[in-house]
Each structure stands twice: as C-alpha cells, then as structure tokens.
C-alpha cells in the first residue's frame, strides 16, 4: 500500500513525469508511423473500389478514425480532469490541458473530411444530421474548455475551472448525441443516415482499424510532447527544469 503510494507520488510530480514522457514519445511516434503507413497502403492499394460509392468511400480511412478519436479524447481529457480535481495532482491537469488541442484538431478533421465526403455522396457539404450536429457541438465544447483555460491568468484557477467544465461537458456528450438523434428522427425521415453506409469488406475494415490505431498512437505521442512543453513552461523557475536545459 505504502509502496504503491510512493510510486504514485513519484510520477505525480512534474519532474518525474517529464523524463518519463520523453522516453515514451519515440515509441508512440514510431508505432503511429508504422500503423499509418500500413493503413494507407491497405486503404489505397489493397482495398477494392466500393461498388456504390466508388472511390469516395476511401475518405472513411481518415474520417472515421478522426471521429472516433475526437470523442475518445474528450473522455480521456475529462478523466484526467477528474483525477486532477480529486487528487489535486498538477500533472493530471497538465495532461488534460495537453489533450484538448489534439482532440479539437481531430474534431475539426472529422467535420472537414465528413464535409468532403458529404458533398459527393449527399450532394451537400453539410446537413443537420444527428452525428454531424453533435460533432459540431463537441467542437464547441473543446473550444470552451480551451478558451476558458486561456482566459484565466492564474494557472491554478485555470486548471480547476476548465476541469469542472470538461467534467460537465462529458455528461453532456451522450445526452447531446441521443437528443439530437431523437430530434432528427422525429422531424424527418431517414433521408440521410450514415448507418446506411455499405457493408464493409474485411480489407476496408482492417484498413480503418489500423488507421484508427495509428491515430491513437499519434495522439498519445503528441499529447506527451505537449505536456512536456507545458511542464517546462510552468516549472520554469524550478531548479530541475534548469538542469533539464542541457538534456
């Protein structure tokens, strides 16, 4: 018990976390590159053309992983926020802060690639469908968390305030998803529905899975890189950070 507690406090202090993150980054980055290369190879050169959508379906290989990551990263961010509030651990807040931009980026990418998929398939860049709308709102939630953090001078306050917001938001994400979906089906028929996408061949599915894994690794690497920056910025005057200048 006391043993595990000791390790916990060890890694919950920024100066222990900084080198640990530094060691992990190359691994995640390497895995990400391997996965992405493999995913792209299968996606473009192995997977066959879809008989309904033609080759436009290949957008799926970035769209779906981006959409998944956007939601997954929000949950992870909220998790770190909760840990930070509960244990008053600074690195947790830093992790939450480090994840937000990447999450927002993937949300944007899901919207962007979705729009470029929607134009050829539906004939419109945008429709107010349940998934699309909830993804847009997710972008607003990310923006809210980041802007709130940026608007508060005192870092400690900024950390805790945006953590509270992230937690409230994570309750909201599923509610939004279902409410929008429900609203949508009430009003209009299933003129647009992504579940009507063609049954996917095994190669397509595996390409998508590998790409998703690549995005996952990428997110981990980038979040760790960002958290290292944040640690250094915040602990600027701490002596260990000064020592780190040569590393």
């Amino acid at each position, binding site marked *: 018990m006391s043993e595990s507690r000791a390790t916990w406090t060890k890694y919950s202090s920024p100066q222990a976390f900084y080198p640990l993150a530094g060691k992990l980054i190359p691994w995640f980055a390497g895995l990400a590159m391997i996965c992405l290369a493999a995913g792209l190879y299968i996606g473009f050169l192995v997977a066959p053309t879809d008989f309904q959508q033609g080759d436009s379906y290949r957008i799926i290989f970035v769209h779906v992983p981006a959409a998944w990551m956007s939601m997954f990263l929000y949950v992870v961010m909220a998790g770190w926020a909760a840990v930070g509030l509960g244990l008053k651990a600074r690195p947790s807040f830093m992790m939450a802060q480090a994840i937000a931009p990447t999450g927002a980026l993937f949300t944007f990418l899901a919207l962007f690639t979705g729009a470029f998929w929607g134009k050829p398939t539906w004939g419109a860049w945008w429709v107010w469908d349940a998934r699309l709308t909830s993804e847009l709102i997710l972008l607003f939630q990310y923006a809210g968390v980041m802007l709130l953090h940026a608007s508060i001078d*005192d*870092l400690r306050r900024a950390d805790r305030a945006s953590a509270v917001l992230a937690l409230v938001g994570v309750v909201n994400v599923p509610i939004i998803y279902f409410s929008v979906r429900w609203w949508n089906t009430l009003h209009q028929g299933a003129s647009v529905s992504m579940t009507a996408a063609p049954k996917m061949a095994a190669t397509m599915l595996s390409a998508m899975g590998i790409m998703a894994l690549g995005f996952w690794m990428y997110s981990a690497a980038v979040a760790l890189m960002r958290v290292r920056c944040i640690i250094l910025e915040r602990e600027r005057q701490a002596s260990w950070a000064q020592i780190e200048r040569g590393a």
Partner: protein
Amino acid sequence: MLEIIDVACMRGNRVLFSALNLTVPPGVLVAIVGENGSGKSSLLRLLSGLLPREQGRIRWNGTDIDALDDDYRRHLTYLGHLNGIKDDLTPIENLQISAELFGDDRSSASARGALQAVGLGRHTESLPTRVLSQGQKRRVALARLWLSRRPLWILDEPFAALDDVGTALLTERLSRHLDAGGMAVVATHQAIGVRSESLRSLRLSG
C-alpha cells in the same frame, strides 16, 4: 486560538512568503504590515479559507480548518478590500440581510444602532448605498462588526478611506472585541490604536 504553522504562499510563480508561523491567542490583535504587494491580502485570504493553501497548516482551537470547514467559518468574520455590500440596497437593508446570512442579530433596531455607531446619520440610512461616498460605503461594510459576536475577525485594510472620526470609532470597536476575548488579524498601512498589551505585529518582507 488560531495557529498558523509553516504556511507558504505562492502566486503566479513567485513565493510571497514561506515558513510563516503565527499564533493568535484570545484577546490579541495581530497587525499584518508590509509593503504593497508583500502578500498581506493573500495571507488573510489564506486564513479565511478563501485561498486554498498548498503548504503548511492552519489550526483553529487545535483542529485543522480544512477539517472544520463550516465549523470554522461559523467563528469567522472576514472583510476584504471589497465591501461586500449591494449598491442598490440601502445601508440598513444591506446590514440586515448580511446579519441574517451570518446568523447575527438581525432586528432592524440593532442594524440601525450599528449604523449609528459607525457614524452614519439618519439621512444616509434610506439612500441606496451607491450614492454614498467612498468612506461612507466602507462604514456600511464595517457596521457588520458592531453586530458580529464571532471570535475571529479578519480585516483587510479596514481603515482605508476612513476619516479620523471613523478611525477612532473602529479602533474603539476593536478594543472592545479584544477585551471580550476576541481575536483579530488586520492588514493595515497605519498604526492601530488599541492597547499595546493586546497588539502584535507581523511584518511581511515581500
């Protein structure tokens, strides 16, 4: 009795003070002095529990104030830089409502009495606090002290904006509070005229 043990305060990467120790026994007023920006206000906010503290302990009658929580606040009257009064209400309404919120004596007679004690005449009683002068507003806020029966007072520059009469009135109230066994921690830039036996002073060196 309030004990401050090894407390440090850091704001925005700068350590304002550290390893601060202080005991406030009954009947004693501790004047916190120091230059502008030395951390007087921050210390008072730490003591009142408004500012979460990262290091050290603060004990009230032997128990940590974080553990006491509401039980600590029940013994506390805090008055910050801000007056904590509503501009749109009259002085008497302000006073009565805050008495009610803090469980002090809330009859309108005693509120009126407190306002008189603090030197606010009848003609200001029914004006909205908004139109009062700087010093008059401060007096409205201070009037709470005339109703408070709580043992620990934490006051941030209570004499600011007060004229000589106001200063004398407040000093007199502080003395009575100390005589009754009360404690006070007061940040100030000027000398406080209470009996020297009950006066201690803590200088923050910034």
